[in-house]
Structures are given as C-alpha cells and as structure tokens.
C-alpha cells in the first residue's frame, strides 16, 4: 500500500505536518493570536483528513508486525550512512516508516486526540505562540513514535516529546507545575536512557546484509542470494531485530533465554513501563495530570500513556519473545496490581483530576494484563483498550476542564447537583463515566472484556483478582458522579453555565465515537486483527518451539 | 678518635649508587609538596614548587648518568630534558611571581588561604 502526495509519503506528511505548522506559528507575529490558533487547528484538521485517508486505504488483510511486506504506506530510505573503516562497520540508519494493524490504530487515535486537544486549547491565554508551537512539536513526536519502524528513529521521536511536554506542563500548568514537570521529565528520561542502552545492545546483536542500493536483506535471504555485492552491517531496523536469524553469533543479546537478554528486556521494559505508567513507576502521573492544563492532560492520557504499551507490543514482544514469555506472569501481575491499586487509590481522591489520573493507571493496567495474555483476544482487547481509553479519558479530562474553567476548583466534594444546572454537560458526563466503568454498549466495555477474557485463558487467578476492579471502578466512578452531579446544587455555583458550542463539539465528537465503537467495534478491530493474530502467533510459536523454531 | 668515628660512620654508610640520588630526590620531592601544601605565603609555596622541580631534575640527571634499567647505558637525553625543566621553571616562576604581585595589589596579602572567595 502506497500513497504519496507531492512525492512524499503520507506517513511523512502526517508526521511532519505539525513541524511545518510550528514553523508557520513561529513566523506569525506574537499578537495575531487567532491566526496562530487557526493555523494549529488547520494542521490538526489536515492530520485528521490524512488519518481518514489512511483508514480508508488500509489493507486489513496484511499483518505486518515482523514482515516488511505486511507493513503499509512504507517509506524506507537511508537516513544516515557512514561508510565502514577497517575496524568499524558501516553504520546505516534508515528512515523507515510504516504502519500495520497495531500502529494504524494509534495513528488514528493520535490524530483524533491532537485535534480535540487543539480545540480544547482555544482558551489558552498566555504566550499562545509558544504554546501552540510546542503543542505541534509534541504532536510530531507522538505521531513519529507510532509510525517509526527503525529503533533509532523511534527513540528520537520518543525523546522529542519530552521537552515540549515539560514546557507545556511547566509554563501553562497549575500551581505546582514546576514540580510536576520536572518529575515527569526525570522519570521519563530515566526510563529512556535504559531504553537507549537496550537499543544499542540490540544494534550490535543484529546483523543484516545491505546491497549496493542500500536495501536491507535478512541474513537468510542474503545467504540464499549468494552474497554478491552484499555487505554485512548492524542495523536499528526493528523488523530485522525481530528475526532471530539475524542475530550476531556470540554477541551480547545472541542466543535464547540468556541473562543478558533478560536484562536488556527489563531495561526496555522499565522505559516503557514508566510511560504507561505501571505500578510502581506511576507516581509521576497524578502530579503531571493535576498540574497540566486540560488539553495537555488530554494528550497525556489520550496518547502519551499509550506509547508505553505500544512500545511493548511493537518492540518488546516480537524482539524478545523469550523474555516476554519468561516474564509474562510478572507483567500480568504488575498489570493487575496497577488495576486494583489504581482503582483503590482513585477512590480515596477528592481532587477530580487526580481521581481521573489514578483511574488511568487502573485502566492502563487492563492493557498490560490483556497483552500479557499473549493471545489474540487479550492483545486485541489491549490495543482496543488503548484506543478506547484514549477517547474516554480524553472525555473525562475535558469534563474536568469544563468545570474547572468555570469554578476554578476541582474538589469533588465542593460540587453537587450539577445535573440540573448543566444538563448537556451531565449527559456527556454520564456517557463518559459509564464508558469508563465498562458499561456494555460503550466502547470501554468491549476492550476490557476481551482483555480479561484473553487474560483468563492464560492467568486464571490473576484475572479473577483483576476482575474485582469491575466493582471498584463502578464504586469510585459512581461516587464521583453522586458527589458532583447528583444531590442539590450549592448556592455558590448558581451562576454556572452549561457547555458552550466548542466544548459541546469536542465532547460530543468523542461521545459519538465511544458509543459507536461500543456497539460496533469491528471498524477498529478489523484494522488490527491480522496483526494481532500474527503477533500472537509469534509469541505462541516462540513459546512452543524455542529458538530453534524461530529460525 | 674523631677520625675513627668518622670512618665508622662512613663504613656504616653504604657505597653511593643510583638509588641514593633517587632517595635524595624523593625527599626533596616530598618536602616540596609539603611546602606547597602548608605554607600560607604564596612565595613560599613557589619555593616548594622549585623543590619539586629540582627533585625531578636530580632524577633525570641521575638516570642520565646511570642509564637506568634499560640496556642502552648512559645517555644525555636526561640532561637535555633537565635544561628545559630549568628554563620552564624560570618562566613559571616569573609568571607566578607576577600573579602574586597582582594579588598583593588586589588583596594586600600574599597569604594563599586568604584568597579564597571562589568556592562552593
């Protein structure tokens, strides 16, 4: 599947459009605030349009995951090519973009959430220029992570997000924004340096052949073709790393189920787990969410958290199937702890936003549990949950934002009876809350159900414990609902107004998606189905046959 | 009596060899370091530095004479090196004294430990 505009691939467009937008925003004079806003919005609208194009042209029958033939909209070219010297091999880093069923879902989500977040940023009234420029840069970072198939490129995008996020929280955030921002930054950086080391180790443990035209061939392929004109190089190509046939014999990560592989896996895992965030790496999240401005919370919860789980599925699973299988129980355990723990701690919160933040931890635990199951149902559930959590939590944070904009407080105990005062708001809110607590008919249910069903197949006891969160989530969600929306309206909030058109538009858009996918998830599931089956196949194959079978 | 005592001491002292020069050098080196570390007066610190350089020179010349552990025997390289050391010692002394004078003009003291406003 190819699709280009002006000779440039669509994935490049969707990834780098925001950078173009950023430059445009930077060139605009500081005072033309509306122009800045509309430029940013225009860029995100274009991204949505491109996402729709991708969606419509996406071939649902291709699996991707570890085969380049199964990747779609592939753009593969040489980015860095340093000729070899006697003692140092050729360094060849690819500009390798492509999506499969796993990433296309995330691309759609990113486009959608960025769009919503940009609308939600309309009320930002301080240094708009800087804000929108950073927002757009962040956007590129997120999109880039989801379309990169070269580890190096992936890592660059991964890190590119950090700084904009730091400033977006740090400059436009709440009272303790500095603390939250630096905490976010340090945590994530800690994770990513470990990831960096794992990445380099992988680089040296992977060999491929490169031909004169700069095209990569796996070792098996190269050997078959007789090695004419081929040069053996290390590579950051993720797909090459997934093929055990490309392992460099005797290298650090060569072999199967070795301690070094486990160590590298754990390093990678910590990098991703911090982003998810998985218990016990989660403590940055509540602070970051509470202090971040609403649109940033939306992006943080809507997209950024998914990068952790995406990274695991994209990289940890196919590259380290042995370690993944080895640690799957531990992974599931952490997922379950996150679920239960997040729900319990959420219940104790009185800050609306913090509560939602902890609920995110709980919901992302579902993703982890689902993917740890290593079967199609569980992983499908997990990826769908990533998408659904993105939309639902975006709604929840927007809901918090709406009330915070009006009341300038987020204490759940300070409200009551908003249902009468703000009927439209309440209607959307009921949808969001019930979606979050997994009510059938709304999207959250399906993904949670399949995650748990899949997990049950693999980990019975853990899943049963995890299922307790079904009750706990209902508990805290309804409790908030009661405290904020039911009961009688306190005197001081008599002046609150219902949502305006802009807010309604954002929330209703998301609500429609939530309901639609709740009834008919197939449009999203079909996208990823082939990929999930393939991934599950890889894992099961690795589990049953070990390394010999992989080769 | 006097002579016999003198002779006795001499008899007790071993014949002078390379190691003797080296040990003198080691003592000078240590004294120089001691001077650098302990004297408050900057000029006396510089004297310590000169002791260290002299110690090194004794080494160089002694090795030049005895040939050291290597098989090649005596060579003049050590002496030539020592000349350069002496030259550089002079250069260094010159600039160091200039700096000390400047300090004296600024701070009205040459006590090194009193010039310590740059610190944590």
């Amino acid at each position: 599947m190819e699709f280009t505009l002006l000779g440039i691939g669509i994935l490049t467009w969707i990834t780098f459009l925001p950078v173009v937008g950023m430059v445009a925003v930077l060139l605009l004079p500081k005072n033309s605030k509306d122009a800045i806003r509309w430029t940013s919005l225009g860029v995100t609208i274009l991204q949505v349009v491109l996402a729709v194009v991708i969606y419509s042209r996406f071939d649902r029958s291709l699996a991707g995951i570890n085969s380049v033939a199964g990747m779609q909209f592939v753009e593969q070219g040489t980015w860095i090519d340093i000729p070899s010297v006697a003692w140092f091999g050729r360094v060849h880093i690819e500009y390798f973009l492509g999506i499969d069923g796993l990433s296309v879902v995330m691309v759609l989500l990113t486009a959608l959430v960025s769009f919503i977040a940009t609308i939600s940023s309309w009320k930002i009234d301080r240094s708009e220029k800087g804000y929108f420029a950073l927002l757009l840069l962040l956007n590129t970072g997120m999109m880039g992570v989801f379309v990169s198939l070269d580890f190096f490129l992936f890592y660059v995008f991964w890190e590119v997000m950090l700084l904009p996020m730091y400033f977006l929280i740090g400059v436009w955030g709440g009272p303790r924004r500095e603390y939250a921002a630096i905490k976010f930054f340090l945590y994530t950086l800690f994770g990513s340096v470990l990831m960096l080391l794992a990445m380099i180790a992988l680089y040296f443990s992977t060999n491929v052949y490169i031909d004169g035209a700069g095209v990569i061939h796996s070792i098996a392929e190269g050997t078959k073709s007789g090695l004419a004109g081929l040069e053996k190089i290390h590579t950051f190509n993720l797909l090459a790393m997934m093929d055990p046939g490309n392992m460099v014999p005797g290298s650090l990560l060569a072999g199967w189920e070795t301690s070094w592989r486990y160590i590298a896996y754990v390093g990678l895992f910590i990098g991703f787990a911090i982003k998810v965030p998985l218990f016990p790496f989660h403590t940055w999240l509540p602070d970051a969410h509470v202090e971040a401005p609403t649109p940033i919370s939306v992006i943080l919860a809507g997209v950024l958290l998914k990068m952790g789980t995406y990274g695991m599925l994209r990289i940890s699973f196919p590259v380290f199937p042995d370690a993944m299988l080895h640690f799957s129980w531990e992974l599931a355990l952490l997922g379950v702890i996150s679920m239960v723990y997040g729900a319990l701690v959420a219940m104790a919160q009185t800050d609306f936003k913090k509560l939602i933040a902890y609920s995110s931890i709980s919901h992302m635990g579902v993703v982890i549990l689902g993917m740890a199951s290593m079967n199609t149902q569980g992983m499908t559930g997990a990826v769908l949950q990533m998408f659904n959590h993105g939309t639902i939590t975006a709604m929840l944070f927007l809901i918090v934002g709406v009330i915070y904009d009006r009341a300038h407080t987020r204490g759940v105990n300070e409200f009551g009876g908003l249902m009468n005062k703000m009927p439209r708001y309440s209607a959307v809110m009921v949808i969001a809350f019930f979606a979050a607590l997994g009510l059938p008919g709304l999207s959250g249910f399906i993904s949670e159900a399949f995650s748990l069903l899949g997990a049950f197949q693999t980990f019975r006891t853990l899943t049963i414990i995890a299922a307790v969160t079904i009750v706990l989530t209902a508990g805290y969600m309804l409790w908030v609902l009661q405290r904020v929306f039911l009961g009688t309206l306190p005197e001081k909030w008599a002046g609150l107004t219902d949502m305006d058109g802009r807010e309604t538009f954002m929330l209703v858009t998301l609500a429609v998606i939530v309901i639609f996918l709740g009834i008919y998830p197939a449009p999203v599931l079909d996208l990823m189905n082939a990929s999930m089956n393939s991934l599950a196949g890889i894992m099961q194959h690795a589990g049953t046959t070990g390394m010999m079978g992989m080769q | 009596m006097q002579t016999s005592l003198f002779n006795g001491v001499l008899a007790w002292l071993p014949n002078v060899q390379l190691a003797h020069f080296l040990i003198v050098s080691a003592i000078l080196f240590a004294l120089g370091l001691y001077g650098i570390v302990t004297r408050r007066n900057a000029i006396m610190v510089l004297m310590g530095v000169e002791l260290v350089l002299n110690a090194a020179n004794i080494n160089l010349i002694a090795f030049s004479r005895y040939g050291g552990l290597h098989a090649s025997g005596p060579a003049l390289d050590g002496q030539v090196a020592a000349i350069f050391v002496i030259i550089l010692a002079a250069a260094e002394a010159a600039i160091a004294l200039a700096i000390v004078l400047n300090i004296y003009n600024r701070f009205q003291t040459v006590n090194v430990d009193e010039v310590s406003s740059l610190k944590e």
Partner: protein
Amino acid sequence: METFDIVFYIFATLTIVSAFVVVFTKNIMYAAFSLLFTFIGVAALYVLLHADFLAVTQILIYVGGILVLLLFGVMLTNNVVSVDIKTGTLNTIPALVAAAVIVGSLAAVFYMTWSTVGEPATAPTATTRAIGELLMTGYALPFEVASVVLLAALIGAALMARRTRKP
C-alpha cells in the same frame, strides 16, 4: 668508601637539611637563603653525576635568576620596615602524613627497582659540547618551543605585574 661517597653524603645532607629549613622555617628570608643552599647542594650532586654543564646552569639560572626573582617577590610583597616576614602554615598534619607516605613509598620503589644498577661502565666525558649538539639536532624543536614559552611568560608576567590603578 671513597671520596665520591663522602662528598655525596655531605652535599646530600646539605641539600636535604636546607630544604627542610625552606619548608619549615617561619621566616621567609631564612627560607629564601636556605633555598640557595639547596640549589647549590643540588648543583653539587649534578657535578657528582658528571653533569657539569647542568651544574653551572643550575647555579646560573636558579641562583642567579629564580632565587633573585623570588627575593624580589619577597621584597615587593612584604613590608620590610615592619618585621612581618613570618608566615603561617596550614594543613600541617595531613601534609606531614602525605609527605611521609610519599617518601616511604617512593624510596621503597626506588631502592627496590634501581638498587641493582651499578656504576656505569663508560667513563664520564665533558657534556657541554654534546648537549649543545643535541639541542641543535634532536632537540631543536623543544628548544624553539621553549623560546615561545619564555616569550609567553614574558608577556604574561609583564601584563600581570603591570601596576594599575585600583578600581
């Protein structure tokens, strides 16, 4: 025991004792004069090592140059009229320990490593000419560089010592 040994011990003692005075005396003038004896002692050791040219150079530059420079420094930085030429010390104990350890370990290393080296077989010759030749051939580059160093030192010293009005 030969004359050589006796002379060595005498000058070695001179060198070391005067060096002791340099670092331990409180009076800066005493220190400066003791340093003179140290330099002379070292020069004598050079002679014992058949480095006649070096010995002369040592006397010339060290005594004639560096020591005078130091004395100038002493003069310029001490109010000679008052007797404030004594100086304090600091870090004495740790420095003493460090110095002792250095002497101990260095002497041990030196003794163990080089005690086997005997008297050189070759007879000593005059070194001045040979050194001159070396400086013009193998050591031409260092020679030139040394001149640049001296130039830089000159500029630097002139710059730093230049009297300026106080701010």
